[in-house]
């Protein structure tokens, strides 16, 4: 049985659907579309389809796992499909979708606050504490334990309300 000829737009849409569903290996409740790292699905200059990804952190090891997962899924539809990684413009946590933020909270990770813009003011101890809600009990009475958590994208906090530790997706 031969498949009916697809239009180019249908080919891209099918590839996008396949790529978009790839989960983040470290936070599997999020897809790469939720994370905002699926930049584009398009035809390259040579006519071959390509999926464009952008990394979260420069050294995030998940980038390579995601890349091979995307290739595995899109390869079933189109063996010619490629994955390219583009750095610019740099990824920001502001690109995480609303849906993604809800999933993070339900998973027990506080979603990222809006990012700081402009140069980072160095205020040391005088900086006002940001309000981060505990994803478990909803209390706003939480404190920073460490800016660096179990993965590059998370910081470690503690809730003074329910006394539980939790991760925050840190604004980048």
């Amino acid at each position: 049985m031969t498949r009916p000829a697809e239009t180019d737009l249908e080919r891209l849409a099918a590839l996008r659907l396949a790529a978009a569903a790839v989960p983040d290996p470290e936070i599997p409740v999020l897809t790469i579309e939720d994370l905002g790292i699926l930049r584009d699905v398009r035809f390259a200059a040579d006519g071959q389809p390509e999926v464009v990804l952008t990394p979260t952190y420069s050294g995030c090891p998940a980038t390579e796992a995601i890349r091979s997962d995307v290739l595995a899924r899109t390869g079933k539809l189109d063996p010619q499909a490629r994955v390219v990684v583009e750095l610019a413009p740099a990824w920001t946590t502001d690109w995480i979708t609303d849906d993604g933020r809800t999933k993070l909270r339900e998973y027990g990770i506080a979603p990222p606050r809006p990012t700081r813009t402009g140069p980072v003011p160095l205020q040391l101890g005088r900086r006002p504490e940001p309000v981060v809600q505990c994803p478990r009990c909803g209390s706003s009475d939480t404190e920073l334990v460490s800016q660096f958590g179990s993965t590059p994208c998370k910081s470690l906090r503690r809730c003074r309300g329910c006394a539980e530790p939790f991760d925050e997706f840190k604004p980048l």
Partner: protein
Amino acid sequence: MTSPVSEQPGAAPANADVAAYAIRLGDDALILSHRLSEWTAHAPQIEEDLALANIALDLLGQARTLLAYGGAFSGRSEDDLAYLREERQFTNLQLTEIENGDFAVTMIRQLLFSCYQHELYRDLESSTDAQLAAIAAKAVKEVSYHVEHASTWVLRLGDGTELSHDRTQAALDAVWPYSHELFVDDELVRRMADSGVGPLPSVLRPAWLGAVQDVLTEATLVLPDDDWQPSGGRNGLHTEGFGYLLAEMQHLHRSHPGAQW
């Protein structure tokens, strides 16, 4: 460093100068990353183990993109550059290679280097070289967290107990001489500045000094006199400990060429 994440196909520096410049910056990130990774399982608390490993990972990621880019000009991979060069071929600043010392030495080194890298990357965001600009725009956000981390520790140690203050002042006195090399202008960086690729290092110093001084003052630490100013890292001249660092970093790859996991 196993299978490299390739960037845009065909991304290669326009000329040998840009390639050498990218490799310099990549070497800085690679070597400091390795030094920081030596703390893993040895830091004073488990959160700090995670923090230093995370910062090392950020730097390793930056090193990979910079070395892959710089190497593309001469057909060398990031692995070739990291594992198969000799000591004299590494062009990192000596500040990035000096031994970890105690925790205060590591934090002072981190403060001085992160503030420098922050100024440098902010400037490189508007580089005429699109790939360097993209790498810098990404990395500067990571480095702002490194600055914050080091500042917090220097403040806590410097303005802490008498013992922690004295050890942190001693660390500052020991590390400070190596900071001068960050701001040395040579022929390569002059050509980079002329072509709008990167800033003259000397131009970065006032803003760097301001940022560093703010932290040191609040931490009740005294800025050392500018005396001895070791340099030579950019020309492949390194400190005694560097050979040992390379031996550890390169051992596996040289014993088992092409090893993957």
